[in-house]
């Protein structure tokens, strides 16, 4: 039941925020903050009390489970379950949700209640995605979180760069993800009907469908249906068109959610659904996926170097970082998959930090154009220092979480795909270049305008400090995270080795 509450609390809180606007502007903010803290506390308590050792053969792999029938005609259930991976991501959602509420405290000045309704609905949908095990339910949450995100960008976004209105960016985001989502729906339905014709049982349950024997050419297409849906959200390079605009036009809270959590739903979907449902096809597809990941790493990094808009720059670095995650997921190595999970968490922290910082800069100098910045180090106290730290994290400096993640990804992938690792390492060099470019153009160099600016207040200071402490803590001692996710990563990695064994044996027989 606690899983249901994890999903319901943000939705109820959102409705309350909407109605609370009549009690003044501050009321929705406090309610939203309390709601997200509540989610965070619940997940942290679950984490402290949970047992994440590898399950024995008789135990369930889930920490918590909850299921009731929903649409019996199609065998659809409300089936929620939580394991180490979902727990970490739910906790991350609670944490970044809190930050999103905090960072829009002064930024959003009008229609406060409706803003927080949308913000909390996104977070509720994301928690749903991380907990749903029924494929229908998963799809439902997957699509549902788009609507409030659309409103967030379209109504409270910036109409920044010329020729790109926020509504166009929002529409593009929505159409990209919704259309690819429908492909996934088609793939889900095809899988269900194949299972139906095999066994005569209609079911959308993850456990039931996992063993489905899909005929060969179809299985590949179905795997592709899932892959494309997740690839659009991750984003993988040919499908990334929506991301820079959506980030650049979104309000700070929107960018934090988008980079911090929404992109992670895609990686989560791959680990949870795309790989276990179609292990052989995924193993066969791995070289293509890794190549796409490489293209993403290089492409994102190179384009990041050429951006003028600070938020677009950070958006492109996300593409680059997610390339590492994609490579790791398709490497079939336990170490690399765990690295990918750490990298996801680390990227959530560092990109959230950078987006919040750029939001704070915008509140002070009212521009995101780096050509009109420069020399801010001497004009703003404290904030440039934080920027330096997060930039260092983003480029993968040792002692930060990002370093641990990237190192594990590269180390784990090397045995199976050394060439890929060698090329991917070039991305690390490019990361240093764009990070230093960012630092140089914004904070160093001659002052574009003279005069000191306001330093951070306690709220801003607190947010930054918490993020930084977490980044360094995970960087120095990632073991708790690794322990929690080991039970998830190991079976996924095994799937790949089993699949390749099968292929090898088939080769021998031939």
């Amino acid at each position, binding site marked *: 039941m606690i899983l249901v509450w994890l999903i319901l609390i943000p939705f109820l809180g959102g409705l309350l925020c909407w109605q609370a606007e009549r009690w003044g502007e501050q009321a929705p903010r406090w309610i939203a903050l309390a709601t997200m803290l509540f989610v965070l506390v619940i997940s942290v308590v679950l984490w402290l009390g949970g047992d994440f050792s590898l399950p024995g053969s008789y135990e369930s792999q889930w920490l918590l489970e909850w299921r009731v029938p929903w649409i019996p*005609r199609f065998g659809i259930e409300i089936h929620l379950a939580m394991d180490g991976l979902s727990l970490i991501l739910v906790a991350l959602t609670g944490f970044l949700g809190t930050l999103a509420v905090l960072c829009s405290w002064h930024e959003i000045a009008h229609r406060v209640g409706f803003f927080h309704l949308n913000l909390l609905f996104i977070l509720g949908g994301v928690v749903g995605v991380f907990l749903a095990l029924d494929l229908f339910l998963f799809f439902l949450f997957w*699509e549902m979180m788009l609507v409030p995100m659309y409103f967030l960008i379209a109504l409270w976004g910036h109409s920044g760069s010329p020729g790109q209105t926020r509504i166009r960016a929002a*529409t593009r985001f929505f*159409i990209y993800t*919704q259309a690819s989502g429908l492909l996934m729906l*088609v793939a889900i*339905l095809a899988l269900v009907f194949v299972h139906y014709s095999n066994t005569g049982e209609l079911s959308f349950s993850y456990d039931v469908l996992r063993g489905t024997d899909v005929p060969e050419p179809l299985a590949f297409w179905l795997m592709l249906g899932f892959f494309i849906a997740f690839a659009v959200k991750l984003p993988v390079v040919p499908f990334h068109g929506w991301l820079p605009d959506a980030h650049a036009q979104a309000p700070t809270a929107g960018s934090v959610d988008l980079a911090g959590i929404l992109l992670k739903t895609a990686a989560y979907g791959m680990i949870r659904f795309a790989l276990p449902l179609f292990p052989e096809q995924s193993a066969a597809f791995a070289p293509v996926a890794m190549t796409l990941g490489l293209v993403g790493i290089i492409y994102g990094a190179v384009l990041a170097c050429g951006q003028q808009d600070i938020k677009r720059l950070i958006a492109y670095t996300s593409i680059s970082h997610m390339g590492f995650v994609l490579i790791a997921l398709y490497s079939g190595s336990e170490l690399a998959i765990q690295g990918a999970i750490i990298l996801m968490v680390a990227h959530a922290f560092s990109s959230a930090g950078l987006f919040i910082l750029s939001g704070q800069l915008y509140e002070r100098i009212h521009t995101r154009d780096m050509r009109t910045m420069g020399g801010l180090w001497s004009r703003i106290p404290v904030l440039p220092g934080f920027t330096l730290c997060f930039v260092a994290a983003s480029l993968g400096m040792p002692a930060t979480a990002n370093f641990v993640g990237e190192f594990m990804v590269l180390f784990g992938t090397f045995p199976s795909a050394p060439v890929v690792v060698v090329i991917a390492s070039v991305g690390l060099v490019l990361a240093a270049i764009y990070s230093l470019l960012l630092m140089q153009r914004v904070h160093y160099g001659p002052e574009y305008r003279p005069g000191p600016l306001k330093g951070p207040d306690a709220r801003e200071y607190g947010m930054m400090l918490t993020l930084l402490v977490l980044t360094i803590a995970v960087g120095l001692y990632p073991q708790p995270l690794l322990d929690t996710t080991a039970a998830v990563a190991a079976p996924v990695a095994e799937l790949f080795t089993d699949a390749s064994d099968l292929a090898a044996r088939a080769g021998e027989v031939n």
Partner: protein
Amino acid sequence: MLTLESLVSLLPLIIVATTAVVVMLGVAWQRHHAGTAMVSAGGLVLALLSVPLAAGALTSPPLMTVDGLAIMGSVLVLLCALVTVALSHHYLTGYIGPREEFYLLLLCAVTGALGLVASDHLATLFISLELLSMPLYGMLAYSFRAERSLEAGIKYLVLSAAATAFLLFGMALIYARTGRMDLAGLAAGLAASPDAWTLAGAVLMVVGLGFKLSIVPFHLWTPDVYQGGPAPATIFLATVSKLAVFLVLLRLVMVAPIFDSEWLRTLFTLLALITMLGGNLLALFQPNLKRLLGYSSIAHFGYLLVAIVVGGQLAVEATGVYLITYLVTTLAAFGVVTQVSSPFGGEDAAGLHHYRGLFWRRPWLAAVMTVSFLSLAGIPLTAGFIGKFYVIALGVADARWWLVGSIVAGSAIGLFYYLRVMVTLYMPEPGMRRRDATEDWGSRVGGLTLMVVAVLILVIGVYPAPVIDWVVDLSAAL
């Protein structure tokens, strides 16, 4: 033979027809707007209550069949008519001129629709279809002092007459080959492989019915008529008329094997493809809300045609569920247009600019509109998603990948204009605004009905099991 038992099964139709007569006599005796509306609504409610009796009757009257499909159709027709009546009252209070005849026309059309969904014979099919269409001309041209309304009425009249001619010709051709006009007889007479004449007859009938459903090559009237007609008349056209005609088409395809030929199936596939894509593409940059909804309904019937292509038990079920979701959604969307345009004041408030910033003036009305547009776009947790889910499932189960692909493409295109309308509702208001819903819209019957419909969209979206069970029960007998 017409027995007492079979009269019972016709009870809803008889009650509605009687109400029409009562309303006519009442108007002749003394005009009273509210009274007329109440009597009409009362008659419709009575008819609705008599549906279980009709369903329980064992025999059907000659030329008709009261089976599960007919019962489902009757319930939906009556409910939509009720909502239309509820919305019409407030709308018509502003109308200068006779208001009461609108209800008379509406009741006549409902009678036709009830006959149509139960017709088992080409003669009843034709008569009911005409009884449904004739009053619609009057309803569409009701505010005949407004040029567009008159245009809508006459356009629908002329094109509908042409479509009727096609339908009749098709029926004649089929009759010439088989010598039978009842659907069972058609099925028996055409058991052998169809020849060119019967195929031609079938295609001509499809053209006639396709016009009423605004399937793509026959859709040209739709935007003008949707835009011109007074909002309640448009609601009726978009819901009751299309629902009844589609159920007849489904019955034809299910019962008569002529429509089962592979050739005709290909034709339907083609029609479905161009209807989905055409409807959505035409709506893309439409600044007029009523026209946009017209195009959107074209696209939705394109999706529904998938059921006609696939056929079989699941298709009937999918049609039922999809129609229900389409009806509640359309009622809500047009209901908001009606509310904003009420009371009548010349042309309806259909320009998108009338709705700019609606959320900040009339939050609940805008919420209804948002829910209905999300449902039109097929976003989860609304009724529209359940409908779309069914149609996609149908296409996937039958491995019709072309249709599935174009549903996906159509939905993606559709999102663009649905989102455009939705975001308009939340934009900051411009300085000028000419039309707005009255302050008390929410406490009137029409407003309350609208709220109920919107809640229904969400309820069906979140917990569709009861609706699905109902449809499954009714379609199982077929």
